[in-house]
């Protein structure tokens, strides 16, 4: 018990308002200060009670009723009741709300299909949906639905983002922007007080410097470890490299609206040309796994029967010839110039893919843009082939398959389906899966969808990136959640 824990991140928080956060660094701060109605279990994306002790859904799946935990108080001493939950929802979703200060970028996603929220009595909240939407309950565990103190939001107004008041395990003390934030243990926390007394979350952008701070002992834990440093950490008996399967995927999308990728044989040829295992060995330090489906195996509904296309330059060349390209063809391979968990070393990975494709006769010119430009150009469909990835928000298959491969998400300029793959069969299955409340039924729909996607091959699913973090040996009881959010409530510092 006790002590101060220093967690060094690659960036300091941008905002401490959970409703307005969009980056992982901010979320690692807010998730230790704010509670959600339900929360993710310690090692999976299944949800369990949190601020809501229990909940029920009506048989038509349209009305969700949450029973709140009794006696929970915000850090400012005010009561957390049904009205507070309603206030938090309306602040985000209603542009005319007097405290709608912020972009609330995630609100449209987390509250999709929510029609209204009512406070039935002091401890009962009722959400009414416009259409049945099974992922709703996992969305209620997402960081952006954290319940903030309405009194504090009213008190600080537009400055709430630097005076966060929640009901979570840690209370806000101080934030020196771009430097560090300080929190202290909430001794009255409903789930028991945190083991440590104080939590410091620092931002240290340079990978090497962050590691040096941890080696020196001036930081206890760090995120975003540089793959070439894995070995150095493993060899140091004072340090622990903690890894596990992640909740993300890196993929190569082929724009099916452009020739020659409108031909399924070409898309399959590209799939055969890529050697995923070699990529994992070379650029992920062996942590991570070759991908077979558009969603990672950490999520329920993953179809294990789908085997990836076998790596074979000959098969690829044969398919190319069948499709009328006996001498191969020239194209472009776009890659994003920003390291992500699913794309640890973007340029090297792109170069390796270029070589692999060349062996099958596909001559790809590498093209890149700065991140912001890259996102808008790929969303407009300017690319023939583009590398991108996705980090799961809530651990629901819908969050991968529907977002990334449904025809609903192919509008130019805003498309999240950057293969512009439009399959009615897949669409029907995904919508049915959204509306079914039974998980076994949903699993069947998703498994079928994955088979069709595999056959149509709009992507080369590349790699499931691992979750990686590092900490000093003295840090006890820490496990990195698949969502890669650093919940530090139960961590303590040993000798």
């Amino acid at each position: 018990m006790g002590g101060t824990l220093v967690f060094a991140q690659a960036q300091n928080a941008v905002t401490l308002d959970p409703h307005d956060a969009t980056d992982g660094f901010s979320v690692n701060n807010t998730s230790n200060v704010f509670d959600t109605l339900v929360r993710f279990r310690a090692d999976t994306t299944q949800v369990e009670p949190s601020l809501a002790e229990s909940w029920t859904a009506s048989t038509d799946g349209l009305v969700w009723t949450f029973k709140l935990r009794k006696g929970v108080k915000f850090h400012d001493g005010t009561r957390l009741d049904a009205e507070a939950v309603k206030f938090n929802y309306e602040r985000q979703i209603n542009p005319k709300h007097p405290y709608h200060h912020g972009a609330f970028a995630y609100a449209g996603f987390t509250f999709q299909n929510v029609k209204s929220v009512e406070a039935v009595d002091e401890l009962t909240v009722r959400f009414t949906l416009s259409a049945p939407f099974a992922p709703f309950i996992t969305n209620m565990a997402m960081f952006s639905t954290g319940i903030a103190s309405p009194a504090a939001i009213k008190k600080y107004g537009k400055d709430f983002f630097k005076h966060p008041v929640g009901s979570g395990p840690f209370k806000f003390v101080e934030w020196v922007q771009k430097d560090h934030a300080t929190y202290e243990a909430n001794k009255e926390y409903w789930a028991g007080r945190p083991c440590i007394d104080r939590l410091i979350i620092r931002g240290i952008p340079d990978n090497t410097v962050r590691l040096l701070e941890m080696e020196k002992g001036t930081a206890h834990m760090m995120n975003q470890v540089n793959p070439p440093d894995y070995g150095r950490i493993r060899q140091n008996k004072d340090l622990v490299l903690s890894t596990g399967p992640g909740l993300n995927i890196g993929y190569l999308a082929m724009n099916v609206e452009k020739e020659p990728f409108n031909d399924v044989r070409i898309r399959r040829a590209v799939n055969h040309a890529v050697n995923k295992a070699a990529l994992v060995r070379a650029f992920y330090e062996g942590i991570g796994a070759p991908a077979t489906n558009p969603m990672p195996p950490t999520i329920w509904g993953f179809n294990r029967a789908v085997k990836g296309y076998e790596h074979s330059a000959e098969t690829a060349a044969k398919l190319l010839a069948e499709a009328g390209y006996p001498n191969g063809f020239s194209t472009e391979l776009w890659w994003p110039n920003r390291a992500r968990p699913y794309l640890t070393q973007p340029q090297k990975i792109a170069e390796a893919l270029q070589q692999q494709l060349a062996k099958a006769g596909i001559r790809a010119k590498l093209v890149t843009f700065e991140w912001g430009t890259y996102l808008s150009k790929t969303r407009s469909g300017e690319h023939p082939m583009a590398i991108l990835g996705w980090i799961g928000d809530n651990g629901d298959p819908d969050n991968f398959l529907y977002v990334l491969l449904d025809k609903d998400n192919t509008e130019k300029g805003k498309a999240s389906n950057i293969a512009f793959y439009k399959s009615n069969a897949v669409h029907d299955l995904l919508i049915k899966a959204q509306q079914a409340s039974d998980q076994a039924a949903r699993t069947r729909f998703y498994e079928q969808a994955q088979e069709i996607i595999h056959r149509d091959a709009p992507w080369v699913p590349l790699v499931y990136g691992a979750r990686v973090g590092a900490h000093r040996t003295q840090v006890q009881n820490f496990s990195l959640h698949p969502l890669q959010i650093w919940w530090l409530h139960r961590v303590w510092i040993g000798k």
Partner: protein
Amino acid sequence: MAAMGRYVGRRLVEIVPVFFGVLLIVFVIAHLTPGDPVLIALGEHATPEAIDRLRAELDLDEPLPLQFITYMGRVMRGDLGRSIQNNERVIVELGTRFPATIELTFAAMLVASVVGILTGIVAAARQNSWFDGASMFVALFGFSMPIFWLGIMLILLFAWYLGWFPISGRLDYTIELTRLTNFYLVDALLSGTWKALGDALRHLVLPAVTLSTVALAIIARMTRSSLLEVLRQDYVRTARAKGLGEVRVISRHALKNAFIPVVTVIGLNVGSLLGGAILTETIFAWPGVGRLVVDAIFARDYPIVQGAVLVIALVFVVVNLLVDLSYAYLDPRIRYG
């Protein structure tokens, strides 16, 4: 003096068109760069509805000229707007970040000027000696060394291995300091927190040395060549002929005249370091304006980028004015009119 006053007045008036020029150019460049803040904030995650809603809320769906007029109107009223990323007032953001960068820049320029000028003088006085050769070689080295590499090496040696200085940051998180001006040295002095003063100074050393190297090298070489030129002039020969010692010849007669190009270089470096300490700030996790601007550019946080560039431009103009004014002191023949 009246002429001087008029000169300063005219220069200050000239700031106005510079100000609007900068405002327009930054605005246009920022907004014409592809990529929009909404997409970047959401990253891979934007849903079409979220994108539309946000664009409208941030007034990004208005025509560009209209956005500029609205923006200029607000700037005239002293309102630089709020950050798109977190709603912070731009003026507050700059008010906390600029002091960090100014503190770092001035510490670096202090190191660079003192060491650079002294080295340059000795090298010139002992031209072609081993010291001259060695110091000019080191200066060349310092000029061409990547800051990133140097910073990491200094950290490894002095912070990680020897433990004389902290590895990164600006102040230890255990130290309480009332942040009035956000110049930590000033705040520590004002509140009489000696522990904070010592700690802030210790945090300042390595980044300041790292940041100083390029300027130091330029200043040393400039001082040397400028002084060598002056030493060859007739009035210096006269001074020597009077029987004055070399130290007195240099310090009383030659130095002041040799300083004009040196001061120019120092002034230019202060200006560029204020906006260009980005690498040093990144290595040492220094919460300064360089990182603020870079992060804001990548996030397309237009209000922050525009506000910061505006202030950097103003500082640049003011420092240049000060440099020009110092010429008159160094060389009485220079008059303003």
